[in-house]
């Protein structure tokens, strides 16, 4: 299963820089990132080429970070495709805890990364495949 690196970051200037600096030192390539703002802190979510190395690099510095399973779905960049995915999940009562998407150029490949409750993960994966989407395995996602 694909892994996403989630990092606890205080909401103040300079915090992102200290993380990016350490990832750079470990030669980590960032494929995608998003930040969830919670007021006094935020959660930085990263898709990177070497999640375990990135995790160790940050954990060694004392960062609060965690590797989390993420359902990464390849969604061709065409109108209606996201709706198709969302409908399949809805029909099967699958709750998405958190999600973000990005489109890779020039192939116009859309990727939707979703955090799903552990108990629903297997069902979610099956639902997505039955709806005709490809689930990206870890190496596929990291080497996009």
């Amino acid at each position, binding site marked *: 299963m694909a892994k996403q690196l989630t990092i606890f970051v205080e909401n103040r200037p300079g915090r992102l820089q200290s993380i990016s600096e350490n990832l750079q030192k470990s030669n980590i390539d960032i494929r995608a990132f998003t930040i969830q703002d*919670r007021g006094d*802190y935020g959660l930085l979510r990263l898709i990177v080429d070497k999640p375990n190395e990135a995790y160790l690099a940050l954990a060694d510095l*004392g960062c*609060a970070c965690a590797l989390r399973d993420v359902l990464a779905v390849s969604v061709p960049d065409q109108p209606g495709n996201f709706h198709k995915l969302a409908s399949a999940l809805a029909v099967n009562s699958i709750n998405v805890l958190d999600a973000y998407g990005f489109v890779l150029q020039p192939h116009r490949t859309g990727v939707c990364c979703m955090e799903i409750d552990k108990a629903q993960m297997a069902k979610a994966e099956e639902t997505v495949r039955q709806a005709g989407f490809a689930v990206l395995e870890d190496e596929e996602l990291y080497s996009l």
Partner: protein
Amino acid sequence: METAPRDRIEQMQLQRLKQTVAWALQTPFYRKKLGQVGIDSPDDIRSLEDLQRIPYTTKDDLRLSFPKGLLAVEMRDVIRIHSSSGTTGIPTVIYFARDDVDNWTDLLARSIVGTGATADDVFQNMMTYGMFTGGLGLHYGAERVGMTVIPIGGGNTKRQIQTMKDFQTTVVHVTPSYLLHIHSRLGEDGIYLRDLALRKAFIGAEPHSENTRRKLQELLHIEAYNSYGLSELNGPGVAFECVCRKDMHIWEDAYIAEIIQPDTGEVLKEGQEGELVLTNLVRRATPILRYRTRDLAFLYPEGCDCGRTHRRLSRILGRTDDMLIINGVNVFPSQIEEKIMKIPEVATNYQIYVDKKGALDRLTVKVEIYPKLFLGEVAKLEALRQKIIEELRSSIVISPAVELHEPGALPVFEGKAKRVVDDRPKE
């Protein structure tokens, strides 16, 4: 009694001290403590100077005697229990027999009358009711004076203002910061100062300067009277300002006040600043002798323009310990530490931050999250924040704001940690 000559007051103090020692000897705590200095009977107290033979009693003594080490009567004779938060989880508890409530009520009625308030006044008691003594103490005193009492309790500013208008409240009992807060909210619901009938405020439960009092008086066109008390010695009504508003008369027929050097315990002369030590003279169920209040103050020599002979106590000038007063509620940093260190998801470093938001104090507890238990879930982090707030509220009564910080983000100290930052403006 209020204008009795000194020798009469002292005569009464001696008589009541002997009685209090007799009561105290019925408690396990004082039987041991007084026995150690050779006081086994009230007859061992022959003059007021003999008070000096009695060892001091501290908050820790009360805590270690929890729950009944200081109880001098049968439980069936206790009609009420009050308590205050302890420094570490264990509360200090005070038992009241019927006479104790009655005597306390008398002291408050006397205090209220001393400010010029009468049965014609409508009294809105904005102090918190419950185990704290601020609410019920003044409530009973005001009823005894015959005032119209509105037992509204603390908080809910809109309702306070509406009630002040609806019943044309003339006197309030309130912390100075909350009264300033109320002033700042006037006009919001179309209720202005001109719609109110307020003329007096009894202010207490938190230290404040003469400037704050002046500001309250000018902003609200009222007279503000300082009040002093602590739950260990009943609560409010230990000392109260009279119409002269030049510091507070200690009711010396009910309390013996001493000022000591906090480090050496040496008794200081009148007028010298030090720690206030109080002996309760009229409390049957929980007699307390020479209680170290940790409040810094000084005593004036006898004499006041009002004619009362009971000596006056200065406003409280500080504390000898690290106790914080947050909107009138006493909070010990040790209470906060004890709670948060029990929560595994919190790392060992933390900070207690106090500042002002508008007129009110704001307490923020900053904790670092513990990396090994971080799972990357927002829901868990928010649940952790709620858990910390709940744990603290159960201990310190007020709800602090809780900030979550990265591991290692809070200042680290070598040697003695300075974990409390008080950014409230000093006046």
